[in-house]
Structure formats: C-alpha cells, structure tokens
C-alpha cells in the first residue's frame, strides 16, 4: 500500500545515493521541494532521467553535486535561457551526460512498462546520438527486410519516479490530469514517490471525472502533502512559475559562488515557499 509520510524530507530519505530517478520537465509535475530536500541531505551519484527533459530541477541538483549521470533529451529553462549549472558541469566533465531524444526515452520507459527488453523507435539513424549509445542497437524489420534499418532502444527502468501533483487521496491515488508522462513514469519505475499540493478526502478512482487522469495508488510507494511543492517552477492548472525568483536563480547560478549563496539562502535554510 502507499504510505502517507509527513514531508518531502521523508521522501528524500527514501531515495538512496546512486538511485536512478526519473523526473518530469518543468511544465509537468516537478517535486522541487523534494529536490531541495535531496540537496539538503547531501544526496550523491544520482542517475537522473529526464522524461524527456529536465529544467530547473535538474540544473539545481547538478549544481549541488548530487548527480553523477544525466540521461535526457535536453536540459531547458525555456525562455529563461541556458541552464547555467548544467552547462558548467558539462564543460567541466563533472557529470556523465547520456544524450537522447524524446521519443526514445518515452519508448524506453514504455518497454519497461511492458516488461519487454526493448522497443523499436523510428528515425534516429544518421544522428550522432546513436554513436554514443550502447543501449541503442540498429536492426531491421524481421517482417520486411526491405523496410530499411530501425533502431531498437533498451528498456529504461528507473528505480524511482519522483513527481509533484495537484491532488492525491489517502489511498495513494494521484491526479495528474493530461500530464500522462507521469503515469508512464509511475508504471515504468520500481517505486514512485509523490508530493501533492493537497490531499483529497475521498477516492479519486471512484470519481468518474477524476479517475481518467489518476495514477492508481498501486504504483505509489510514498506520498507527502506539500503545498507549493513545485515552487519556484509552476504547476499546471494551479500556479505559474515564480518569474522573479527564477530570474534571480539564473543570475546567481552563473557563478559557483552565486549558486552556493542561492543554496544557502533557499535550500539549506529552507524558507516558506512564496
């Protein structure tokens, strides 16, 4: 059964060093509050998987030294500009970047969801990405050898999917609406940890309107209530990004010292979210 824990700190304690952690992009559901807790507890050697990309959450974890490997189609802060800590780490070679492409990440997770070892993916051939992936193989269609080459991507099975959602109930059911990349993450990962804005006193699966956008508690190991848990990025249908704060992050994260002072102020000394 899903366990209702008291805080994002409790969730961070359950994410061991070295874990393969799947994260949603900034426009989906990011548990920024757990990312801060991971930094606070000094998490190390995480293998982050962007589904299919990461944003501020990834940049911050990388900057704080929590990340050994980053598997993603991109690191993007959208209109805020290039991701400063990611770029610094990539340049310094202090993280191992496994460059991918969105559909290959989705398909790798879908393979894990189905318990199959791989899935074919169209395109990719001729991209230099392929040269650097030993978990992608070029093959052919056994039903039609004339059909040309085809890439097979190996299943991606995260240890943990970490997400933030607008609503959850006490059975561990998690409402994610149309953001079904989080459903896929929960199916594919061994365990799913969730923070939710709000705990709903009822059964989301019993509600005809809510059920179609709900991850069943079956997939959820632990859940904590965390209002404004996605801050400073936004949460669909709830609140937008904290523009001023994100710009401040970007400004300070340009230098090691600035980033250290950011962590000191907003992570090691947690303050109430806006």
């Amino acid at each position, binding site marked *: 059964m899903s366990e209702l824990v008291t805080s994002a700190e409790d969730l961070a304690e359950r994410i061991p060093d070295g874990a393969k952690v799947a994260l949603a992009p900034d*426009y989906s559901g990011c548990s920024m509050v757990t990312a801060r807790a991971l930094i606070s507890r000094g998490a190390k050697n995480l293998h982050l998987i962007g589904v*299919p990309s990461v944003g501020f959450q990834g940049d911050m974890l990388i900057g704080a030294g929590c990340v050994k490997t980053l598997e993603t189609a*991109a690191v993007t802060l959208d209109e805020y500009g290039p991701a400063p800590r*990611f770029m610094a780490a*990539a340049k310094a070679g202090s993280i191992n970047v496994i460059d991918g492409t969105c559909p290959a990440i989705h398909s790798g997770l*879908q393979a894990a969801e189905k318990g199959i070892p791989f899935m074919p993916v169209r*395109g990719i051939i*001729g991209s230099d990405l392929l040269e650097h992936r030993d978990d992608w193989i070029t093959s052919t269609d056994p039903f039609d050898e004339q059909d040309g080459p085809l890439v097979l991507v190996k299943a991606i099975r995260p240890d943990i999917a970490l997400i933030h959602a607008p609503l959850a109930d006490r059975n561990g059911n998690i409402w994610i609406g149309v953001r079904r990349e*989080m459903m896929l993450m929960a199916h594919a990962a061994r365990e799913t940890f969730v923070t939710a804005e709000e705990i709903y006193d009822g059964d989301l699966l019993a509600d005809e309107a809510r059920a179609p956008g709900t991850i069943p508690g079956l997939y959820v190991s632990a859940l904590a209530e965390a209002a404004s848990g996605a801050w400073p990025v936004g949460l669909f249908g709830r609140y937008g990004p904290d523009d001023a704060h994100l710009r401040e992050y970007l400004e300070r994260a340009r230098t090691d010292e600035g980033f250290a002072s950011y962590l000191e102020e907003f992570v090691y000394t947690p303050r109430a979210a806006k």
Partner: protein
Amino acid sequence: MNGEIASSLAPEELLITTVADMLSGLRHVAVGAQSPIPGSAALLARARSDGALRVSMLGSETHSPFTDGGRELFDCAAQGRIDAFFLSGGQIDGEANINLVGIGDYPETKVRFPGSFGSAYLYFLVPRVILFREEHTARVLVPKVDFVSAPGSSDTNMNRTGGPHALVTGRGVFDFDANKRRFRLSSVHPGHDTDEIREHTGFDYDSGEQVPETRLPDGPTLELLRGQVADEVAETYPAFATRLFGAVTAP
C-alpha cells in the same frame, strides 16, 4: 499600399507571414514550446484556412490537443497526422544537418547546447520541417555541424517520410533540394542583399542570377495578423504579442 505595408512591417511580422505561406493547404501543423514566430505563423495560416488547418501548440493550455502525455506528439507524427513542424539548431549546415548538442568534440563540448529534444525523430517523420533560426551568421550556418543531432538527408533505403522543407532566417529564405542535398537561396528579406547573405552564411548553397525579395503580406493578411491572430498569440506568448503587436496602430 505596398510601400505603406513595407514601412510599417516589423521584421518578425515578415517572418510570420513568410512561414505562414509555407503552411497553406496543410491539415495539421504542430509547433514546439518557446516558438513565438512559428506559433504565430501557424495561427495565421489557420485563420486563413477557413477551419481546415489544425494547429497543435505544445506548451499552450488552449491550443494543445494532446491527452496521452509527452509521447503523443511523437506517436502522432509517426501516424502521419502531422504535416509540418519547426526545428532549429545551435548549428545548421549546408546539408541541413542540425546540431542541438554542442560545439567541439563531443562529449568534450566547448559550448554545450540544451540537447536534441525530439529532432532526431521528427525530422524523419514530418513531411514539411521548416528550419527556423533568426540569427543568420557564419557561427550558426556552418559548413559542417560539430554534432549531428538530426541529419538533413538519409540513404534511400531508410524508411523516411519527413525532412527539411526550407530554412527561414532573419535575412532570407532557403529552399532545400533533397536530391542535391543542398540549400538554394529563394528570397531575400527587404533591407538585406545576396552579398550580405553569402558573407554571413558559412555553408555553400545554390542561388539564381536574380533572387527575389521575400514577398510582403497583403493588407488583409496583415490586418488578420494584427487583429485576431495577435489576440490568439497573446494567449500563449503574452510578452511577445505585446512587444510586437501592442504598439501597432489599429488598421
């Protein structure tokens, strides 16, 4: 009238109307996140299509039609349901290869870009991929990209239904000849010229004796863009819409 339009036309407006012309007659155009000019072009093309063109804008709450998570755009393209999409590149070369990964010898990149996103896939599956990059410099338009995120062409045995249709920059428009695997300069934006373009393009390309000026929008098109379309754009890109259309005198 034409002079009037030329004098009031913002460079971004010309890019929008130029791209919109490339979308006419299509059924479904998808636009990635953070793409205000392509997004505006798609909305303009839709407004002119009498409801025939469907526009899917990622990152838009009102124009995103997808309900199956992040994978749906890619599945939808593979189903042949997306006629046009936009890609860009930190580098773009003369064979229409694009680089979204970085400059230098990968993985030791001197400059790191965000990453390849879905380019290595959509470039193969969307029939009309429009390369869009406002910056037209030899730094961006290079002879050979340092890293191929997605190739402009493939061997004939490859099951590929998509590829580059055109390259639109702040200085002009190139068509892509898939057989020759080369760009051809097809028009030059007002205020620019062919010598300037040759100078600022790092790759070699074909060009006729006379390269026409990029066609200016007609009055009704501009009225549509600055009216109804501007309002629609503002829903997804409020800052962009205000900056571009906010100060425009109503026609």
